[in-house]
């Protein structure tokens, strides 16, 4: 019975303390807004009251080389003598001596993360599982007021980064969607997909090249093989190569990265194989020029003008070269189809090419071209992802408007 009461008192105490902090917090911001936070000239020379309640604990969500120090602001910070300028945080492995300044924060801030290095040789090395003590001092002009020493604390590493949990949950949910819809597609569930003009144009453009007897130019962009835009492009290349092989039209794929070139060769080869014409594949149709952006572009532009390519397809990651390529292709009179996930370059492709796959459409295109049920399943998953995003967005906006901040915070990643 008695114990329960004590427990109840503790809760009450914490509650009141919280209220007090809240009140203090409001008061401080209020004072700032009202413009009362100016230091009077006389108070600057006096020592401010020291900060209190200095607590050190392990920093969460890290590899175990950082501690977090918190304290209660000096009464002269933003109130009282109102002469505190900053706080300095001192650390030592001995409670009595050897304190060294490890960081400075501005007035009004009551927390500091003492982030050490993990390498033993580093002068900022902060070992795991070793006790440290902290002091915090308030500074006013040239005068300091030091707090008492904190209780010891040590740093240790964690197994899970809780600040990243929104990323984790989001990734798990979306992975679930992808697996689920691909399995449904496997079972032969028919899926509707809306038409995309740029994708429908690919067939037509290949046909045109065949009629004209001129080659097709396929540019995978300047990304590396680890860029997802490039991967999307390489899978589209595979489908395009299959059609090209069927029509027996030559395809040219100049590359700006050796690994991309390697993978592009395999993609094209696979396309020819799928079309039943593995012998028609020429290794030199996919080649490397150079990795330097503008040298690569100058060569591709020359190629367009000299080979008079009938169709140019630009898919993948593009930077400033987008318009250089597209305008030159225009001079050469080619039909041009583009697609990129680079927001800054989409305007130029939209302006200068005949069809443009905007952002996510690039990622949908490989599934569209192949019409393979497995890949269409992934498109369905993407749509469900969007539905989830839209629901969260609507709820989040409502929550923010009615000050249910906890809901908004669910989506915020704390690195």
């Amino acid at each position, binding site marked *: 019975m008695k114990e329960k009461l004590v427990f109840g008192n503790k809760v009450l105490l914490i509650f009141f303390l919280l209220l007090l902090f809240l009140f203090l917090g409001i008061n401080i911001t209020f004072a700032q807004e009202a413009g009362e936070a*100016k*230091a009077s000239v006389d108070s*600057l020379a006096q020592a401010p009251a020291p900060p209190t309640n200095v607590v050190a604990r392990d920093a969460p969500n890290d590899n175990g080389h950082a501690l977090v120090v918190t304290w209660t602001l000096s009464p002269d910070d933003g109130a009282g003598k109102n*002469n505190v*300028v*900053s706080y300095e945080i001192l650390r030592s492995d001995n409670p009595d001596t050897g304190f060294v300044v490890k960081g*400075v*924060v501005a007035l009004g801030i009551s927390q500091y993360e003492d982030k050490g290095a993990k390498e033993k040789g580093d002068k900022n090395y902060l070992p795991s599982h070793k006790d440290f003590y902290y002091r915090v001092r308030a500074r006013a*002009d040239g005068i300091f007021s030091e707090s008492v020493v904190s209780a010891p604390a040590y740093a240790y590493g964690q197994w899970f980064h809780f600040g990243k949990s929104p990323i984790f949950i989001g990734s798990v949910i979306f992975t679930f969607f992808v697996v689920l819809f691909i399995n449904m597609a496997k079972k032969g569930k028919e899926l509707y997909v809306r038409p995309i003009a740029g994708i429908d144009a690919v067939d037509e453009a290949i046909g045109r090249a065949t009629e004209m007897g001129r080659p097709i130019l396929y540019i995978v962009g300047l990304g590396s093989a680890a860029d997802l835009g490039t991967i999307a492009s390489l899978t589209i290349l595979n489908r395009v190569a299959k059609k090209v092989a069927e029509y027996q039209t030559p395809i040219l794929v100049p590359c700006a990265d050796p690994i991309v070139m390697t993978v592009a060769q395999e993609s094209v080869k696979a396309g020819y194989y799928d079309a039943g014409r593995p012998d028609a594949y020429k290794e030199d149709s996919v080649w490397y020029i150079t990795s330097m952006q503008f040298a690569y572009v100058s060569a591709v532009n020359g190629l367009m003008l000299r080979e008079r390519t009938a169709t140019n397809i630009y898919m993948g990651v593009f930077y400033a070269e987008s318009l250089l390529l597209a305008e030159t292709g225009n*001079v050469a009179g080619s039909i041009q189809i583009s697609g990129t996930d680079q927001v800054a370059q989409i305007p130029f492709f939209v302006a200068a090419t005949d069809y443009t796959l905007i952002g996510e459409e690039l990622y949908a295109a490989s599934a569209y071209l192949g019409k393979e049920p497995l890949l269409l399943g992934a498109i369905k998953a993407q749509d469900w992802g969007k539905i989830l995003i839209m629901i969260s967005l609507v709820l989040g906006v409502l929550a923010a408007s009615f000050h249910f901040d906890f809901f908004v915070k669910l989506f915020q990643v704390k690195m």
Partner: protein
Amino acid sequence: MSFYEKMMTLDRRWVYLCVGIAVAVPLFVPFTVPVSVTPEVRSVYDFVESLKEGDRLFIAIDYDPTVMAELQPMSLTIMRQCFAKGVKLIISALHQNGPGMAEQLVSLVSKEFDKKSGVDYCYLGYKPYPGLTILAMGQNFRIPFPQDYYGVSLDSMPMMQGVRNYDQVKAIIAMEAGWVADSWIRDANGRYKVPVALGVTGVMAADYFQYLPSKQIFGLMGGLKGAAEYESLAKQKERQATGRMKVQTIAHIMVIIFIVIGNVGFFMSKRKK
């Protein structure tokens, strides 16, 4: 082919030629292009113009040489305007790659007007943690800067006698290339109630307009254009930004003319059918 159809299908090389001329000719032939001044630039100019001899103004040069083309003309013009009127300047440079460049600028302009360090201006230089420095200067300039850039104690300077903090300056005009601009708005204006005006790069300009209606800043100069506007108001001899802005204006007019030609051709030939 009708005239209007020709308007639609001009050879692109005519477009190239016109752009080439638009950019090349202003490099050789001197002429002026009018600049229309926006109210947010005019309010900065009017404010500086309203200062009297002996008033103190704080100028922050928080950028590095990479954005000099846009921001240096603003700093230069305002400093000249102030020195000509006998306004005393306190100058900081809170970008880690900027203090050397700012020092060159300060010594150049002060020589032009024969102004003395410590008497007519005080160049504070750089301190790490811009946010903290801005807050601390609100208490006392001497906390982050006991001495100026040249190592002279602030207390020994005639112009700093009785000058503690932002209370003794009329305003802060900050030339910014990044987030330090937020710190001036939030900390210097929000906490210490000193009027702040900003000069920012062209890319940043749109994001800072929101602070004008709420009076958190009393003026804003955005990029080359803002600098050219200010130069046209200040009417000084050297106008770096105006020269470049002139080319930009003509090039933009050229692009717009071509868009108009294409559309006129498009509509008229459609009407004929």
